[in-house]
């Protein structure tokens, strides 16, 4: 029996959305096998990982708290990826946002004005955008590959953050822990309810969701970004300004990641710590692809990703599984997604007998 692929000739719209679901299902299947190998009951483990965290309202609110930064980063990445600008730097842009927001916040701990929060958030957004702007500058001015520069900037951002929490931003009264002082109340994002930790960052995320949706689906600017991504030569032929679009896409991307970062320190954390982000910026890459670069798809995918993060923590506590299970599932999901995407352009056929050698069979060879 052989599996062969036949070109469909045109994209299958159904598969466009079925493929992420299939990828998620295959990830669960593979995960179960892995648990079985490790001697855990697969159903129980999956329950601990994916269902138990949502058993109460606190769990749901934690899910939202974790989904916010991922959603913001992924929305920004979607804008860049539509232009085929492979910004891998959401993590660094997020860290810089957190760092800049904190740098402002620790200096205005005593302020008792709404402007404190505005200032902190703006600093974070601006820093995230500026960090992405570096990538844009290197790319437009020097033609340097944005994948490599943005990832290098991630490492630099992390070291900058570590330097700051060990040095200039370290809380002088913090018993030498590498942490900043706690922010003043007026620099914190207010909580939305008494229960849980859901904070006003939710409004920012919803606003960003709508804005990115309008940008990508309705605006001419979004159209230009898509043309640039699909066909650089066509964009040049009609006179779309490539450099401006690259700048725009990266600045939006960075600003949203910066917002995510400052939202973490001004929201649930309340101070600058070395582990601001457990890899949200990288998770956002998977989320952006899983959500098909579509804002609504990304919303769903970021909730799923947040659930994985939450479940990873639960599984570590309840079953002593390494927390890296989150990343492992992330990687598997992205892999399966890319593999399943073959179904968008090709139709699988099972053949019972090896008959003729065809070009499509060569494709599988």
């Amino acid at each position, binding site marked *: 029996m052989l599996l062969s692929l*036949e*070109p*469909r*000739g*045109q*994209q299958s719209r159904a598969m466009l959305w079925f493929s992420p679901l299939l990828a998620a299902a295959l990830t669960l299947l593979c995960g179960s096998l892995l648990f079985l190998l490790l001697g855990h009951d697969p159903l129980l483990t999956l329950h601990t990982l994916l269902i138990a965290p949502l058993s109460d309202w606190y769990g749901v609110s934690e899910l939202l708290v974790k989904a916010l930064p991922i959603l913001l980063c992924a929305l920004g990445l979607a804008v860049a990826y539509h232009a085929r600008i492979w910004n891998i730097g959401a993590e660094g842009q997020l860290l810089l946002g957190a760092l800049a927001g904190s740098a402002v916040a620790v200096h205005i701990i005593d302020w008792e004005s709404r402007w404190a929060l505005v200032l902190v958030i703006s600093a974070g957004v601006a820093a995230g955008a500026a960090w992405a702007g570096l990538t844009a500058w290197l790319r437009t001015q020097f033609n340097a590959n944005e994948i490599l520069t943005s990832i290098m900037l991630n490492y630099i951002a992390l070291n900058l953050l570590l330097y700051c929490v060990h040095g200039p931003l370290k809380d002088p009264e913090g018993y030498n822990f590498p942490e900043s002082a706690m922010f003043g109340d007026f620099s914190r994002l207010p909580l939305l309810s008494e229960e849980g930790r859901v904070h006003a960052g939710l409004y920012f995320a919803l606003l960003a969701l709508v804005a990115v949706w*309008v940008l990508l689906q*309705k*605006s*001419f*600017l979004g*159209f230009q970004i*898509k*043309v640039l991504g*699909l*066909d650089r*030569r*066509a964009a*040049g*032929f*009609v*006179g*779309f*300004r490539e450099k401006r679009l690259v700048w725009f896409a990266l600045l939006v991307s960075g600003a949203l990641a910066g917002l995510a970062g400052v939202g973490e320190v001004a929201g649930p954390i309340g101070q600058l710590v070395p582990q601001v982000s457990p890899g949200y910026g990288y998770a956002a890459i998977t989320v952006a692809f899983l959500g098909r670069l579509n804002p609504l798809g990304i919303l769903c995918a970021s909730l799923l990703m947040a659930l994985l993060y939450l479940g990873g923590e639960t599984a570590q506590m309840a079953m002593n599984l390494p927390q890296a299970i989150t990343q492992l599932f992330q990687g598997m999901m992205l892999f399966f997604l890319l593999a399943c995407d073959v179904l968008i352009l090709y139709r699988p056929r099972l053949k019972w007998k090896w008959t*003729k*050698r*065809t*070009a499509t069979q060569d494709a599988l060879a």
Partner: protein
Amino acid sequence: MSSSTPLARLQLRGITKRYPGCVANDQIDLNIQAGEIHALLGENGAGKSTLMKIIYGVTQPDEGEIRWHGETLKMRDPSMARTLGIGMVFQHFSLFETLTVAENIALAMGRQAGTAQQLEPKIREVSKRYGMPLEPERLVHSLSIGERQRVEIVRCLMQDIKLLILDEPTSVLTPQEADELFTTLRRLASEGCSILFISHKLGEVRALCQSATVLRGGKVSGHCIPADCTDLELARLMVGDAQGLETRHAKVSGANLFLQVDQLSWYNPDPFGTSLKDIQLNVRSGEIVGIAGVAGNGQDEILALLSGEQPLPKREALRISFAGQPVAHLKPDARRQLGLAFVPAERLGHGAVPDMSLSDNALLTAFQQGLVSKGLVKRSKVVAFAEEIIRRFAVKTPNAETAAQSLSGGNLQKFILGREIMQNPKLLIAAHPTWGVDVGAATAIHRALIALRDAGAAILVISEDLDELFQICDRIGALSSGKLSTLANTLETNPVEVGRWMAGQFNTDAVLS
């Protein structure tokens, strides 16, 4: 049947090849004798390419058999074909630009033939014997198109060749170079080598080939002896209803100057590209000017400069002007506002975004036609505009949401041209407007261009197809190595003279005066 004729070198019986959505070859029969120059004639899309790929083992037929010296066999892959003595010269050369001539040949010949250095003496010898001088140690990217073709042919001749297949070999040559090629081919045939010559140019087929098989829509529409047929008879075999083939469009002389190009020189930093020298060109409203030339002589560069994809610095703004207004420094969108429309050479990936729908592709260049307001796309207007193009230019497509890449070449070209014409341009620049397009669509495109001319637009057509240029253009010139000949009235010149210009034989002083 085969018993009555001498045993053919190659026989095809009932070859059928299906692709999703079309039958590329349908029950094709073909015989080629030793030492015979056999033409495979047909329009674009008639199935010639598929058939020769089957002979050369690149693809396998779904049905039918191949007999080589009477023996039925299955052509597994190109290396098997080469072992049998079948060589092939592709239309788009299968050469590696970063390797030397000798390395390219060594790679194709297989390990047993020896290394590049070992092959060099033989390459010199073979190329000299057939009158195709080559330097084996040169890198291919430094060779001209004609030289590259020689590499391809020499590569086939290096081994004991029994059948040489050439796919539209003259499409990249000047008429004079083509004559030299024919001399080589006749010599090869006289030594017993069979030649399968694929073409859609009737004149050269009659000059060179002893027999011909004509394909139409994937089927054999007839066998004939080209020397005994008129152009019209051959054309009828190729396209069936030969309506439109004989159309001659009236020549006009145009009104006011619209496009003026004044001593345009441009240094191309790209080592693979061509630099332009002192281009002098003008196009009047209401006339069609044609520029002939073999690809790679500066066509891409001149198009990029005229369209604005490659704007010049502001101090050189005067080099190009539209109705007296300097534009050489402007970007494409600014030039479009002044009345420019542009049909690039590559339909997919330049003139249209392959993955986008037709309506999105309409928006691509027509966004200045009130399809965008306050930064938002007016979707319903865009769709209406796209549907209007589809209706007026008879584009065959299910609807305006179909992806551009799923249209046939001819239909997509009608759409792109329609998109530009619907914007009422004052100047239309079209590159290779009918390249790879079936006859029906080509006729429609020519009519649309003439209609636009008669409506008063200035039109510049850049094409490699001399027949096409003579058919539709009022004035004509040729590009060679980045230089443009003077323009002559089409009625006062002839293909032979333009062919000389294409080879660079024109008085540059005359251009300047």
